[in-house]
């Protein structure tokens, strides 16, 4: 499951900067995404409807928005 989230450019650049400085993450995009997902999931503790990309894709497909 991938949780779709949105962050500001500024926050992304800051996080990217921190990661670059520390080194290590091969794919910085994926790492930032994972980091933020963890934080968000911890915050909501599964109370709210999970943002499931596969489910979104299925719904958009079934409604004819994507092929």
């Amino acid at each position, binding site marked *: 499951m991938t949780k779709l989230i949105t962050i500001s450019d500024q926050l992304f650049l800051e996080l990217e900067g921190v990661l670059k400085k520390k080194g290590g993450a091969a794919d910085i995009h994926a790492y930032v995404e994972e980091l933020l997902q963890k934080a968000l999931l911890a915050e909501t503790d599964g*109370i*709210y409807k999970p943002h499931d990309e596969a489910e979104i894709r299925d*719904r958009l497909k079934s409604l004819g928005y994507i092929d």
Partner: protein
Amino acid sequence: MEHVLIPPHGNVLVNRVLSPEHAKVAKEKAASLVQITIDEEQIKDIKNIARGVLSPLTGLMNEADFVRVVNEMRLANGILWSMPMVLDVSEEEAGRMKTGDEVALIDEQKNVIAILHVGDIYSYDAMHVTRQVYGTNDQAHPGVDRWMKMKPLLVGGLIDLVDNSKEPYYEFNLDPLETRFLFKTRGWKTVVGFQTRNAPHRAHEYLQRIGLELCDGLFINPIIGMKKVGDFKDEMIMKTYDYMAKQVYAKDRVVCSILPSRMNYAGPRDAIYHAIIRKNFGCTHFIVGRDHAGVGDYYGTYAAQEIFENIAAEDIGITILKLENSFMCKKCETVSTSKTCGHQDSDRVPPSGTKIRNLLTEKKPVPWEIMRPEVVEILLSVDNPFVE
């Protein structure tokens, strides 16, 4: 990576839709809670908050947010926000709840819509609100009329949505997460949002075409819900725009999805509100025409465009396309505006809502200069395309 799209307003896409398991628990719990009945328009507000359409709002406004929005068009934390989002309650209803309580919000059929975590319970001065928000105290204005008839107290607090149903028109009802995913899937870097409550005529199409020339995609987002007598029926707006998206515009360049919402008719403040909503859906640009979201003669022709002049780009975050009214010019032989056509008024055929309505009501075709014949055909295929 999602950050390539525009960030939502306040940088957080809100999600207050309970998971199916938690919704079930909340529904059962609701039977033992104080219950407040809310109307169809309030249900739309609550669902929009929970689905992130009104990000960064996570609930109904507490007093600090409410006061600052009314007076300064900002939330208490300083984020730009133009319309108060509130729930009005009677003295009797307020007497049954206190800050910290959970209250069930139910519809007229007793279905549980949401759980409200009661925050502030406070009074307000309706005359002050309407003067600030609508620029008038005239009760002939539908927004003013609503505030004048509201119950005497407001209650704020976080919302947890129990009923996430999307009827009617669930097939055209996308959440911000879904539109953002869709825009990304189509590879759009820039998306222009178009607000409407009408079936499309040539001038609407012209604005949309300008938007499409400037951006990768066009997001047509009609407001669906309670309308005035003589407005187009929701179904006709959907049908005609579905036709435009599938048969007229370039394939995969247009997305059409509804916005179930009350109509505020707040002119300039509504333009800001509409822009923020489209930003949350993932639009980078938003079209504001003349007389945007106005009613009667309460606002100047350009008021909804001028209000953005005093708002910093980083505060609104979405680019506003301020466009002129257009008309078909017989001498230009195309749709034009006062910026592009130098001919006389007598050469110009402006789209008149009244004229369109009168002709369609009499079952007569609207001239092709004003409305696409195929769109007219769709509108004439039903007994009455207008709200009765």
